[in-house]
Each structure stands twice: as structure tokens, then as C-alpha cells.
């Protein structure tokens, strides 16, 4: 090929300004072109909704055997537990964190990150686009999951006169919080992934932070421990889905609803900023 046709060809690839939405589109392609994403997200949705349906059906089945005071207690605390059962939501938390961690770790461990940064030297913009696409997709997953598990479980319980509607005080908040929990955990996973840059390490760290530590902490003894405990994502979620306060085992240092929302926001923001900062600083 001669220089002349080379120049002609160059004109075909026109110079375009650096647009953030191109980075969003690129991250979108990267996320959905992995088989693991296409399989994991629907399976997680099915599993979580399945656990919720199973719990609701169990209560529906056993309802005739419940004495009246148990039915009264159930009407206060039962529907939210069937809609957002711990077993399903712990898996949802871990799956979200893992997906988040892999968006960064997958690039570092494969070496793709070097091709990515050679193509887009603006590393902060790349990580911001990654966080935005991740948060958007995971919010969609969380919304579908939380809305479906709530709606199906309450439809089943309604047959026994025990179901809630989203219009009752505090109920919509529980659904929204369960949806938002998913992108929050995925961003925490992404931040840890950027810090650790190793899949097993990032997932272990996320599991500890999001699930194991909050389950191990005894928050009744010391105020400062209780406040740290209240600042964890899992605690924040548990507070936000609490429609009626627990009168049998009252918490001496309860979390507030506002504090819980702020906890969600702070973890998301801190994780994203940490990812942006370390990715820019370190040589890939």
C-alpha cells in the first residue's frame, strides 16, 4: 500500500472527541460479552426469588397450625422475612460483591488492563465508567429481584390474610433498600478488587466485610462497637427492612433510617473513589 492510500484510509477513521458515554458503552460490551455474567445474574435472580417463594409457601402451608399469638407476631415480622429471607439475600450480597470484584480483577489477572489503559490513558474515567455500568446493571438486578420476591411472597401470604402491600408505612422502603443493597455490595466488591487485584483475596475480603464481620459482632455491650456495627452495609440493610421495631429484643444502640441510607451512600462512594485512586496510582 502506498502512502497516498494510507492517508486516504486515515481519513476514514475520523477523530472524535473523548466522550464518557463511549467508555460506558465499552464497559457495557465487556460486562455482557462474558458468559459468566449472562449466566450468573439470571441464576442469582432465580435463586433469591426461589428462596423467598419457598419461605412464603412454608408459612402458607403451616398457617392453620399457628396459634393466634404466633399469627399476631407473624403479621408484624413475618412478611418481610419471607420477602427478603436471609439465606437468599446473603447469597445475593456475595454474588453482587463477586461480580463487582471481577469487573476489575478479571482485567488485572488476565492482563487486559494494559490493553485497556493503552487504549484509554484516562484511567480515572475508565474506572468511573466501570463503576457506573456496574452500579446501573446491579441496580436493575436488585430492583427486579427485590420487587419480584416481595410481590410473589406477599401474594402467597395474602391468601392467609397476612400479606403486606407496598403502600403500608415502611414497606416500600424495605423493597427499595433491598434493591439498592445489590449495587452497594457490587461497588464494595469492585473497590476491594481494585485494592487486592486478586480474585480469591477480593472475594474473601468482601465476604468478611459484608457478611462474616457483621454476623460476628456483639453490638449490645459497647457503644463504639455498636456504632461501627451500624456503619456496615448489612446492618444498614437490616435496619431499612425493619418495618416494625423488635420489641422483644430491643437494640440498646439502634441504627437510624437516615444513618442506614448514609451508610449505603458512604460505602458506595468510598469504594468507587478507592478504586479510582489506586488504579491511577499503580502501574498495571
Amino acid at each position, binding site marked *: 500500500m*502506498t502512502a497516498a492510500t*494510507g492517508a486516504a484510509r486515515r481519513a476514514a477513521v475520523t477523530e472524535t472527541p473523548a466522550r464518557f458515554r463511549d467508555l460506558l458503552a465499552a*464497559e457495557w*460490551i465487556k460486562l455482557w460479552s462474558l458468559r459468566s455474567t449472562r449466566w450468573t445474574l439470571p441464576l442469582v435472580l432465580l435463586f433469591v426469588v426461589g428462596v423467598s417463594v419457598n419461605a412464603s409457601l412454608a408459612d402458607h402451608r403451616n398457617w392453620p397450625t399457628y396459634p393466634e399469638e404466633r399469627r399476631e407476631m407473624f403479621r408484624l415480622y413475618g412478611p418481610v422475612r419471607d420477602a427478603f429471607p436471609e439465606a437468599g439475600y446473603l447469597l445475593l450480597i456475595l454474588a453482587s460483591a463477586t461480580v463487582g470484584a471481577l469487573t476489575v480483577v478479571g482485567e488485572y489477572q488476565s*492482563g487486559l488492563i494494559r490493553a485497556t489503559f*493503552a*487504549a484509554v490513558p484516562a484511567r480515572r*474515567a475508565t474506572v468511573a465508567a466501570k463503576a457506573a455500568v456496574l452500579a446501573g446493571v446491579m441496580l436493575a438486578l436488585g430492583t427486579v429481584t427485590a420487587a419480584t420476591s416481595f410481590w410473589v411472597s406477599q401474594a402467597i401470604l395474602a391468601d392467609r390474610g397476612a400479606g403486606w402491600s407496598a403502600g403500608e408505612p415502611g414497606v416500600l422502603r424495605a423493597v427499595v433498600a433491598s434493591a439498592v443493597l445489590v449495587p452497594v455490595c457490587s461497588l464494595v466488591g469492585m473497590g476491594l478488587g481494585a485494592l487486592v487485584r486478586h480474585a480469591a483475596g477480593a472475594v474473601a475480603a468482601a465476604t468478611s466485610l459484608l457478611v462474616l464481620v457483621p454476623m460476628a459482632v456483639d453490638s449490645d455491650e459497647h457503644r463504639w462497637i455498636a456504632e461501627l456495627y451500624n456503619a456496615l452495609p448489612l446492618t444498614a440493610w437490616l435496619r431499612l427492612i425493619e418495618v416494625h421495631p423488635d420489641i422483644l429484643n430491643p437494640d440498646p444502640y439502634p441504627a437510624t433510617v437516615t444513618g442506614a441510607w448514609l451508610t449505603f451512600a458512604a460505602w458506595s462512594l468510598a469504594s468507587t473513589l478507592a478504586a479510582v485512586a489506586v488504579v491511577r496510582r499503580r502501574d498495571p
Partner: protein
Amino acid sequence: MDRVIEMSALTRRYGRKTAVDDLTLTVRPGHVTGFLGPNGAGKSTTLRMIIGLTAPTSGTVTVDGVRFADRPRGLRHAGALLDAGDVHGGRGAVAHLSALARSNGIARGRVDEVLREVGLSAVGRRRIGGFSLGMRQRLGIAAALLGDPPVLLFDEPFNGLDPEGVRWVRDLFRRLAAEGRTVFVSSHLMSEMQNCADRLVVIGRGRLIAEQGLAEFAARSARAGVSVRTPDPARLAAVLAAEGADVRPSDTGTLVVTGLTAARIGDLALAHRVGLHELTTRTASLEEAFMALTADNVEYPAGEGTR
């Protein structure tokens, strides 16, 4: 500045080890410039600094007059194949290239163009994880070409390629240079550069050893000579030495003569009635020149350090 890679006192240290040491160098367009050095000489670190992946400890490097890390998008300014393994095995070739193209605002049609160019159109949908090293090299070259950039960097692009692939890559590099681009290709094997590069940069232990055209390089350190086989080496050696030639026996039983042409040696042998079985002018091999040049600068020499 146009299309030029310019390094000025470029240095990169890792702890106490200096990978690239005070490298000042200009790589110009219109040539395939070979970047040679033994393993561990600092070639890859240099290329990574050019493309902005590694920050220099001191000194500067610019592409087209701009520090690469300062550009928001890179593919239209320089394309690089640094390591064919820098891909996610779970993706298909089309998805991999589409994401890269999209991040730089390059139209989707360009992906099919470069896949066709490197001969991977038929396997575009297959997962990269199943690609051979040679196919990954081709994919890496396709990614480097995406932005139709004026500057191209290739780190050991011949690894894993079959002979047909090697020839294709050489032709491609020469064509890219003929189109007026700057093509900078690293290798630790001189033989790979021989039919490809027209300029050479040699480094050892992070320092610049030589920078010149291929022919000058060959002439520089390897001595041309004449290989002579004769049934009476002692007598012929005496005759030639008397004419001022330097005569050394080689391990294959021939004499290696420098300082006289083959024609003159033949005439002298005839005049002194010494039989000749072979008379060959040896051209200086680039490999020899390279080995001689880098012998003192090998980072990991074999056979040393053992007790």
C-alpha cells in the same frame, strides 16, 4: 515532532535495580526500527513507558510531542501489542476488539476490517481462551491497528508465529512503515529483524548500545572474511601471512582469512601451487554483530553463578 517517539534521559528504577538507564533516543516515521537486546535488557519497560503504562522514574518520553498518559484516548495516536496474553479468555475476538474500539469512539465496522486484515474473521465469535499463541499475536496486532495510528509498537511480535505468520508480519510491518508510520518492534533475536527492520536500536542492561541503519550495524562489528579449505593449510597460511593477511584456523578445519579478497587468495594459491577445495567470502552476519555487541551486557548469562 510529527509521528516521532522521543525519549530523553528516560530512566526507570525498580527498587535498586535500574531497568532503563538514561535512554535518549528518537524513533522516526517511515522506518521499521528494530529494538534489540538480550532478555532483561529493558525493552518491555521502555515500550510500557512509551505507551504510558509505566511512569518513568526520571526523564521523559513523548509520542507525537505529547506524553502518552496525558492523552484521554490512545488508539488513534499509537497502537501497541505489548503481550499477546493481555486479553480476557472468556470473551470472543469481536467483543474484545469492539470494547476497545468503542472506548475510543471508533466505528464498529473497523473491527471487521482489522480482523480480516489479520486473518481472524472466521474465528471472530470464538472465545479467545481457545486461541493459540499465534492467533493471539494476530489478535494483538488487530487491536494495535484499530485506530489506524501513525505510531505502532510491537513487543516480541514473532513469538508463537509459524513461518507463514512470520513472513506475513514482516510484510505488514514494512507496509506500515512505507505508509509513513513509525514502527518500533522489539525482539531478542537478531534473525527476526534481519528481513524486516531497516534501522536498529540495541540496548543492554537498560543502556543504549547502538543506534544505526541495518547495513552500518552489520559492517560495524562483524569482520568480513574469506573461508579457505586446502589440503596444505600450513603452507597456504604462510603464503597469505607474508602478503599481510590475518589467518586463523577455524574449528571446522578451514582457514579464516581477513585482509585479502577471495580473488587475491585464489591467485596467490595458484602462483604457489597450493590446492584449494573451497573459497568462500563470508558476509558479516547480523547475529554475530549483535552477539559481539551485547556480549558484555547480558543480564542473565548462561553458565554463570553456578558453583
